[in-house]
């Protein structure tokens, strides 16, 4: 068919209308469209009437299904929720659509990619029945699909779309060639299809979704406009149409450090970010993308921090950051979301009159509260008030802190009066609860739960409460403080005598702090010996999957009791399936990573100490990459895009953000591996986009035995920085370093690298090429200097499924999985010489049965279902507790913790080989239950699994007090 500018396809309705130059002129005047399109749908307040979007070209009005949310501002759009809304254009048949010459264009901003994504189309793609056309996208790129002379050809663009950014996408087909344009530029051409478009007998003209008879996948993002033409737009016209509209779009804001939000009150959040250039700090926010609220700081700065107030309870609000720079057009960020249901800050005590008299006792309580908080600096977590009397000390403490106070008294009447008084102040229940206990030796409280212990009676009496053996065990052992007093004592020697008498055989450190009220005994409990930590993805920097927690000898779930249970829950996480980074636990804190967020919990009572919402934070598929975070006693180190954030574990303040070691890689790479050992922080550089982040759909379970999802993320370099200062100590660059093999142990950094020239020149750091398994070396560097200590050529079975390295002080183990078998190799850590090699069959080829991470316990290495003597490789057992789900193993000094029979969290005693478990408690699909801080900690990781009866909560188990006897 000869091409003609005014060809309007087979539309009888439009064909007769516009075949004149007059019409063309009118149309140009009306809307800037050179010829009447077949359909023209603009999603703004002028064109959207109720659920109808008017067809500016004719009679094919669209019908918005689901929620109708028009974003406001200069570039109005329909918000697509990815769940329930899209646009149907009803009563359209092939006869109304272009027969051969087609152009379809759209302005769209996507928040998520999809395997099958649709912007606008009329098609069927059901097995071999593929007909029609579609302007769409996949997980990374835009696409155009057309069927004419055969099945649909999906023509893919070359520019990966950035989430939240606006794009003009256009596709054309002229009977001979398909062309795809992104932002006015031709990106791809295909000539597979010839002739008239082959339409299905029936289909759906749908905007904002991929829809045919069998599939209906809705887009998530925004759509401003869709125009369907019955002619082929020329490249210049497409470019000019893009350029004409582009000016309306605010410039995307480029962050130096992307935003991070920290809830500071039930209705307030602080948002912080950094820009390269000084600018004002402006955050627009509101519900449903109505930007009706603004927080602004007019000072020009690069480091921004601003408070958003007035957040509604449990509501999701959106925010975006605007940068106004002198002499520059405004730029604006993508849209971020804050879900206030995930705001774990404690309830505010309203500003009501105090229910307590301002007499001498009252004044003494007020001053005592002040002095206690000042002396201990404990302002969060749980406080136990012994002898809580009328509740005033509890009241004064919550008025001055974020503490949750539990009071106890032996007088029921006093408790009743205290509850009534605290009820009047609206403090009872939300921040303070009171309990009755007949005597100090019958306190109904769990050991180790209190971050702060005080005694109200003592404020008046000057006496120490109960006995230390009843009080001190209740104290949280990693920083918890008992602040008792003020003592009436004649001299410091007298004080020492009284305190030591009181302590008796109870182990505690104590100080004496003198204040205007008198002297306070400030006591701290010692961490029990054998307390472990889980500081890296697999326990330690050596990847042993063992945090050396002895759980006081407990090796069975029967001997563990629930110490705490509760938030965060299923709504905190990403889902259970995409093999997320493990939680970390050290120094009494538990760090839990969710859907672009982090929470710090007290390991002993589950109190949420702080939480950060970081939209740029995400990494999944841990079996094929290194974890994105690690911790030491005082810091959390988190790899986020091209930086590593150093976060104060106590306060959540971002102390600094560290850049990649090689300035030349910062534009093209992001932070890969992260580990902390001794005085050094270790990092690596991977090409942008290499870390896995997709979590939607079955493919993002990452359970395959080969192919997509099993590619290994590799680093182009490896470096060490000094502590938290970020000073570069050394940098290594050799081959492509497999991230799952990097380990730090015994003063060495160990890894496997591939030096194959084709692998080294690949444009991606997510490598699935067969050459990755050639030309490999096992390398050891001096951890302090980066000096190469030794290297050995390596020839293992290809780790197509997974490939792990574990390092102990004197040995290195490599586990490689492929073709139905695990292979386990042992090497000397002194020189890399081979010690032994063994192999055994997988227990199954799905649900993680083929990708388990080995575990080191003492002198044994376990890899389901076998255990081997580490020095010799001798088989010790074939009876390792069988995993019953997709997760992997973590170890204490005497047991393995894993997802066992019926999918429940289980323990396998390495000595007795006995299995125990918690019925209907599940972990995530990788590693979310860790033994550390004297506890078994299981922050919620299974949320999203509608596959069973799971309890679905965060939970902390402690050895039962009677477990020693057992």
């Amino acid at each position, binding site marked *: 068919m000869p091409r003609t500018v005014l060809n309007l396809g087979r539309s009888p309705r439009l064909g007769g209308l516009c075949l004149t130059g007059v019409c063309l002129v009118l149309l140009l005047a009306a809307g800037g469209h050179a010829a009447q399109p077949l359909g023209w749908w603009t999603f703004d307040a002028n064109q959207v009437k109720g659920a109808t979007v008017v067809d500016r070209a004719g009679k094919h009005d669209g019908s918005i299904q689901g929620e109708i949310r028009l974003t406001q501002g200069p570039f109005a759009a329909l918000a697509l929720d990815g769940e329930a809304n899209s646009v149907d254009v009803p009563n359209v048949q092939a006869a109304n659509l272009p027969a051969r010459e087609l152009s379809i264009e759209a302005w769209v901003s996507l928040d998520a990619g999809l395997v099958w994504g649709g912007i606008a189309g009329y098609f069927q793609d059901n097995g071999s029945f593929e007909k029609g056309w579609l302007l769409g996208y996949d997980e990374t790129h835009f696409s155009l699909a057309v069927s004419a002379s055969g099945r649909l050809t999906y023509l893919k663009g070359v520019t990966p779309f950035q989430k939240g950014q606006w794009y003009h996408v256009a596709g054309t087909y002229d009977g001979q060639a398909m062309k795809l344009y992104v932002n006015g530029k031709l990106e791809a051409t295909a000539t597979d299809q010839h002739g008239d478009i082959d339409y299905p007998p029936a289909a759906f003209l749908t905007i904002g979704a991929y829809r045919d008879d069998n599939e209906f996948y809705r887009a998530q993002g925004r759509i401003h406009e869709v125009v369907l033409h019955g002619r082929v737009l020329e490249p210049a016209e497409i470019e000019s149409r893009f350029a004409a509209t582009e000016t309306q779009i605010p410039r995307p804001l480029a962050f130096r450090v992307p935003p991070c939000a920290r809830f500071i009150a039930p209705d307030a959040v602080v948002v912080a970010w950094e820009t390269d250039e000084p600018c004002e700090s402006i955050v627009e926010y509101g519900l449903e993308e109505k930007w009706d609220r603004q927080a602004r700081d007019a000072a020009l700065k690069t480091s921004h921090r601003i408070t958003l107030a007035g957040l509604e309870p449990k509501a999701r609000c959106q925010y975006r950051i605007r940068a106004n720079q002198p002499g520059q057009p405004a730029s604006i960020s993508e849209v971020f979301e804050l879900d206030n249901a995930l705001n774990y800050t404690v309830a505010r005590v309203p500003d009501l009159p105090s229910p307590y008299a301002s007499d001498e006792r009252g004044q003494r309580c007020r001053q005592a509260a002040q002095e206690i908080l000042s002396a201990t600096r404990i302002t969060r977590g749980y406080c136990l008030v012994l002898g809580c009397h009328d509740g005033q000390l509890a009241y004064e403490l919550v008025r001055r802190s974020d503490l949750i106070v539990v009071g106890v008294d032996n007088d029921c009447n006093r408790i009743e009066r205290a*509850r009534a008084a605290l009820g009047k102040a609206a403090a009872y229940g939300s921040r303070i609860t009171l309990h009755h206990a007949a005597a100090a030796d019958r306190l109904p409280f769990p050991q180790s739960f209190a971050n702060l212990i005080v005694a109200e009676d003592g404020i008046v009496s000057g006496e120490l409460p109960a006995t230390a053996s009843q009080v001190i065990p209740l104290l949280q052992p990693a920083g918890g403080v008992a602040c008792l007093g003020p003592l009436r004592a004649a001299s410091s020697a007298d004080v020492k005598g009284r305190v030591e008498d009181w302590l008796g055989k109870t182990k505690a450190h104590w100080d004496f702090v003198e204040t205007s009220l008198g002297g306070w005994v400030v006591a701290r409990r010692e961490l029990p010996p054998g307390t472990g930590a889980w500081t890296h993805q697999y326990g330690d920097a050596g990847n042993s999957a063992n945090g050396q927690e002895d759980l006081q000898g407990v090796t069975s779930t029967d001997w563990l009791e629930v110490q705490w249970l509760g938030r965060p829950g299923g709504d905190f996480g990403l889902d259970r399936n995409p093999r997320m980074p493990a939680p970390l636990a050290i120094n009494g804190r538990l760090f839990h990573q969710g859907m672009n967020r982090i929470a710090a919990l007290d390991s002993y009572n*589950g109190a949420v100490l702080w939480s950060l919402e970081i939209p740029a934070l995400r990494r999944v598929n841990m079996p094929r990459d290194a974890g994105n975070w690690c911790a030491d006693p005082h810091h959390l180190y988190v790899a986020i895009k091209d930086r590593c954030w150093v976060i104060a574990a106590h306060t959540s303040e971002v102390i600094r953000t560290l850049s990649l070691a090689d300035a030349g890689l910062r534009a093209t790479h992001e932070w890969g591996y992260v580990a902390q050992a001794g005085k050094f922080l270790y990092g690596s550089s991977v090409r942008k986009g290499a870390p896995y982040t997709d979590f939607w759909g079955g493919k*993002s379970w990452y359970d395959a035995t080969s192919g997509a999802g099993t590619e290994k993320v590799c680093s182009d370099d490896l470096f060490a920085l000094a502590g938290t200062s970020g000073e570069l100590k050394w940098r290594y660059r050799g081959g492509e370093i497999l991230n799952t093999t990097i380990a730090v142990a015994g003063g060495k950094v160990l890894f496997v690298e591939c030096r194959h020239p084709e692998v080294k020149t690949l444009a991606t750091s997510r490598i699935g090429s067969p050459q990755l398994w050639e030309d490999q070396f096992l390398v050891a560097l001096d951890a302090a200097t980066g000096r190469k200590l030794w290297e050995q050529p390596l020839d293992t079975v290809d780790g197509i499924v997974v490939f792990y390295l574990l390092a102990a002080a004197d040995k290195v183990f490599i586990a490689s999985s492929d073709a139905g078998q695990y292979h386990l190799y042992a090497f000397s850590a002194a020189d890399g010489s081979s010690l032994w090699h063994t192999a055994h069959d997988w227990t199954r080829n799905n649900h993680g049965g083929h990708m388990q991470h080995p575990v080191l316990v003492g002198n044994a290495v376990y890899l389901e279902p076998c255990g081997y003597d580490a020095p010799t490789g001798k088989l010790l057992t074939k009876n390792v507790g069988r995993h019953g789900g997709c997760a992997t193993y973590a170890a204490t000094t005497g047991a393995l913790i894993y997802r066992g029979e019926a999918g429940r969290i289980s323990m396998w005693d390495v000595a007795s080989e006995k299995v125990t478990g918690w019925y209907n408690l599940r972990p995530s699909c990788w590693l979310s239950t860790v033994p550390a801080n004297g506890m078994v900690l299981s922050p919620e990781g299974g949320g999203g699994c509608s596959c069973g*009866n799971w309890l679905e909560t965060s939970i902390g188990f402690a050895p039962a007090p009677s477990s020693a006897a057992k």
Partner: protein
Amino acid sequence: MNDPSRTVFTLLALIAAVSAAAEPASSADWPTYRADNRRSGVTPEPLRLPLAPAWTYTTPTPPQMAWTGPAKWDSYANLRRLESMRNFDAAFFVTTVGDSVCFGSSVDDAVHCLDVETGAEKWVFPAGGPVRLPPSWHEGKVYFGSDDGHAYCVDAATGSLVWKRKPSGPETLMVSNGKLISHWPCRTGVLIHDSLAYYGASLLPWEKSYLCAVDARSGDEEGSGRYCVTFEHLTMQGAMLATESRLYLPQGRQRPELFDRATGRSLGGFGGAGQGGVFAVVTRTGEFVSGRGQNHGSGGELRGFDANSRDYFVTFPKARHVLVTDEVAYLSVGTELAGFAWARYIELAKRQTQLQSRRKAIQEQLAKLPEPSRGTAGENLKEELKPIESELAAMPPKMTACYTWRTTADCPHDLILAGNTLFAGGDDRVVAFNAASGKELGSVPVTGRAHGLVAANGRLFASTDRGTIHCFKAAADQ
């Protein structure tokens, strides 16, 4: 202060004389969660419209729910907007008898009794932990459970303790969301039937659970029909239901469990894994409908079972509430409300399930026949399938024909029937509909999501997720 218990007692005696079944203490009262022990949400009490605000009770802190919201999605199964299966304490639900209205608080761990006329507090009874379900009224007393592990009986007039029982005995508490609670909290409420008080104490499915029946007046555990039995692998949570012979216990994310009321013996569960949820109703016609659990491939729904045999017979996809009267049932699905002929519908649904089951059996038989020798046997089976397929194909229009009306109603949070008026809880409003036609009759504004609706004694109460209790009464009466 008036003594509502006297009225309640008299009416109860009258009702008991004509029926042994547990029914509302009075048609005018709303003495237990969702009106009666079947949790019908139905009262004959008509409310005169339009309604106007009478009083509002507010708390500075919204309900502190036992559980967080559900996961945002099941990404593996491509399911979005998962329903909560454990939101039994989303609001301060009220019960009301005579001139008093009561609610339990998950914030201040107490039961509050308000004057129904003014909303002024009459008394407060402090428990040792959150009270997540509203009290049940019976003979001048109110009964409730707490996260402290106790079931309580309190004098309705004074708020003084009559008895309390904790089946798990003394224990070391655990920390949970700012409170110290029992490992065996009472989250079933306390149900009164035949002067017995029934309750469960349960949470952790790897620990034992308690199901208890005690004398309602004294709390005594010894005597006929009384027991305290233990079970493994249960997690009782959500308001218990009862009929004359059975107890029904929702279990959050686990499927509901059926018990013999007389002995406490377990009779098995309803549905399969993942089919939990805390919405449940037992109809007078013998069906148990529960939800809104979901499993791979489903998006949350209500499922219907025979209340005794536990046989499944129907699914209402994405449904949130169902109300069933003798003739008509009302269904809330997404943004739609509908009325349909219940008896006819379930007759068809049961037949459909039978046919589907038979079809499946035949198909399995067919699949087992070896291909070469399928011959006559196969043909016979195929012949047998034909009328089944034909009848099944005719079912959907027949079932659709049962619907007498459908209307748009974006009020997904609660649904009750008062006389001939449906009240549906939405975001910041409660909407009234004519039960016969579905016609919208008007709405009243509330603060937050209206999760708990109650109609009694000429008043409408709406409890919201903000911790607010609104009381409305006929504008003409104010």
